[in-house]
């Protein structure tokens, strides 16, 4: 026991020393010389806080908190039993009600954040088809978002086509782009695939950036129309643009719900199973009758369609598009959501999108340390919950769940 305890504290000391080595260069190297005060102050706070947490953890291990834990366990079990008895549709209805009522009890800023979260949910679910289900690592996914956004931007500005008509068109263009990247990579696996997709993402961005005559290059395209609807005003139908944030919120909510339903149904169909078989063992899948080349192409195309839909909405919401919105960091962000939430899991990806978009907004004060914390969280996740926050559920109960 004592040996284990001292080992734990030795690890703690090592981790803290390492943390300081990381922290000091960030805070202590200034233009006018080296400084130790500020970094040491922050470091000591973190060190004390984690020492207290570690101490509490050890006390818990010994059982010092039995008087709180036992009742808490009973309450937790009872709550779990109640939750298990509530049918899934009730839980879903509750979530839906909250989502629909959301704009009524929140303000502009919250609407804005919610819209971004929903856009990223669609992107995450689309990428989830490619990465989570079919197991094809795609580092250039944001390209399809860009293709969708520019398709709508150009059609809207030059031809005045409506948002609703452009949704399927942009989805189609994105699917074609998906096939274009999918086709040459069909016979690649693993690292090679990742590098080619990374390259493809950059190609799309650089083409947009340099094709001045079509895309207006880095200056972007201005004056994109918002979605419009025909509205009954008492005398006749009147065309109305949905400009306000609440209206846009409902549009993206509807798109997100469509995406969730579509991905869920795909997942539980023969196509979804074929995707997963390809992920598990491509050769065995081919020998069990799955046309792996076609299925992989389909995975790229389907993932791209959702990216294109999200892109169309993005252009309509911002009323402006420029290549800056489609950089590699965005692809990495969407991929992180999928990995963080749980590959192949729909609620997981949704949770991942909420975590990575909404939480940084809540902790605005720590904005400078965002990437630092982000990296730490990702590293911790891979150690403690490698299957994600909400791992994918399999069909049929597993034996350990049945008991």
């Amino acid at each position: 026991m004592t040996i284990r305890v001292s080992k734990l504290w030795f690890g703690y000391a090592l981790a803290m020393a390492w943390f300081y080595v990381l922290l000091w260069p960030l805070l202590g190297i200034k233009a006018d010389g080296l400084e130790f005060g500020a970094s040491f102050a922050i470091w000591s706070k973190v060190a004390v806080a984690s020492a207290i947490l570690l101490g509490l953890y050890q006390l818990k291990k010994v059982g010092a908190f039995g008087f709180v834990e036992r009742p808490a366990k009973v309450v937790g079990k009872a709550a779990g039993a109640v939750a298990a008895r509530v049918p899934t549709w009730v839980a879903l209805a509750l979530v839906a009600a909250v989502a629909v009522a959301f704009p009524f009890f929140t303000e502009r800023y919250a609407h804005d954040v919610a819209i971004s979260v929903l856009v990223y949910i669609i992107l995450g679910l689309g990428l989830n088809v490619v990465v989570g289900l079919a197991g094809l690592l795609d580092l250039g996914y944001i390209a399809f978002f860009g293709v969708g956004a520019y398709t709508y931007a150009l059609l809207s500005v030059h031809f005045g086509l409506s948002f609703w008509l452009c949704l399927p068109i942009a989805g189609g263009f994105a699917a074609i782009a998906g096939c274009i990247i999918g086709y040459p990579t069909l016979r690649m696996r693993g690292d090679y695939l990742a590098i080619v997709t990374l390259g493809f993402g950059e190609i799309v961005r650089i083409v947009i950036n340099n094709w001045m005559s079509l895309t207006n290059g880095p200056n972007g395209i201005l004056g994109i129309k918002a979605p419009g609807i025909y509205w009954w005003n008492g005398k006749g139908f009147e065309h109305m643009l949905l400009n306000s944030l609440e209206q846009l919120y409902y549009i993206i909510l509807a798109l997100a719900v469509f995406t969730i339903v579509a991905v869920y149904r795909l997942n539980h169909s023969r196509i979804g199973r074929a995707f997963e078989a390809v992920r598990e063992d491509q050769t065995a899948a081919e020998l069990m009758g799955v046309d792996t080349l076609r299925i992989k192409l389909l995975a790229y195309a389907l993932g791209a369609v959702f990216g294109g839909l999200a892109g169309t909405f993005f252009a309509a919401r911002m009323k402006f598009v420029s290549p800056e919105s489609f950089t590699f960091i965005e692809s990495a962000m969407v991929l992180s959501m999928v990995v963080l939430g749980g590959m192949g899991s729909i609620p997981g990806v949704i949770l991942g999108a909420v975590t990575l978009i909404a939480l940084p907004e809540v902790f605005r004060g720590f904005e400078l340390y965002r990437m630092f914390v982000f990296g730490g969280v990702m590293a911790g996740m891979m150690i403690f919950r490698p299957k994600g926050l909400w791992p994918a559920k399999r069909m049929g109960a597993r034996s350990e769940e049945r008991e």
Partner: protein
Amino acid sequence: MATLELSEISVRFGGLQALTDVSFCVREGDIVGLIGPNGAGKTTVFNVITGVYQTSAGQVRYDGTPLRALRPHKILALGVARTFQNIRLFQNMTALENVMVAQHCRTRVGVLGAVLRLPSQKREEERIRQRSLEALEFMDLGEFAGELASNMAYGLQRRLEIARALATEPKTILLDEPAAGLNPAESRDLMHTIGRISELGINILMVEHDMKVVMGICRHIVVLDHGVMIAEGKPEEIQRDPRVIEAYLGNELN
């Protein structure tokens, strides 16, 4: 007539001649054993039949259709299914899902049907489920339907592989060392199972090292050594064949 016919098959990998002029048939109702020492080219024969490797010379025909240039999933759709020597299940899927994947080539519904949940898709999905459960039941795996393949015991995984192959609704099944790693009781069960598969009207070609199993159920045996067919015939003939004995036990010392 679902006859699998190999005529003068040769396969070469670079400088290595893996198979030389191998010819034999698996006829309706047959249980054929393919035996030979390690490295004789038995699994290569399977890979040629299922389209993983291309032949350098010779022809494989199934029902008279040449299989050359057909991709593996097409060959499977014609009715030739296989299992693997080193188990290749979809590890992170449940037993039921593993078997359901095998129904892929027998079903048609596409993306739109799946997204819109058309009535035809629901009917098809129900049928896939039904057939898959039947295949699991046939291999006595019904109670493991919800189990992850990776959590199943070795012997069960072997059986699940056969269930998956059966779910593709084959007319011919290729079993690659189905008894490898099984204990004697499991081997006896396996022999019984292979008998039942044969009774379903499915032709069987199996590679196997366990001579008790091979001699017990095969009606016809083909012996390979260094990629060359050295003997072919009934089990009792094979057991007496001097070339087979030589291949397995080596030359008599002069």
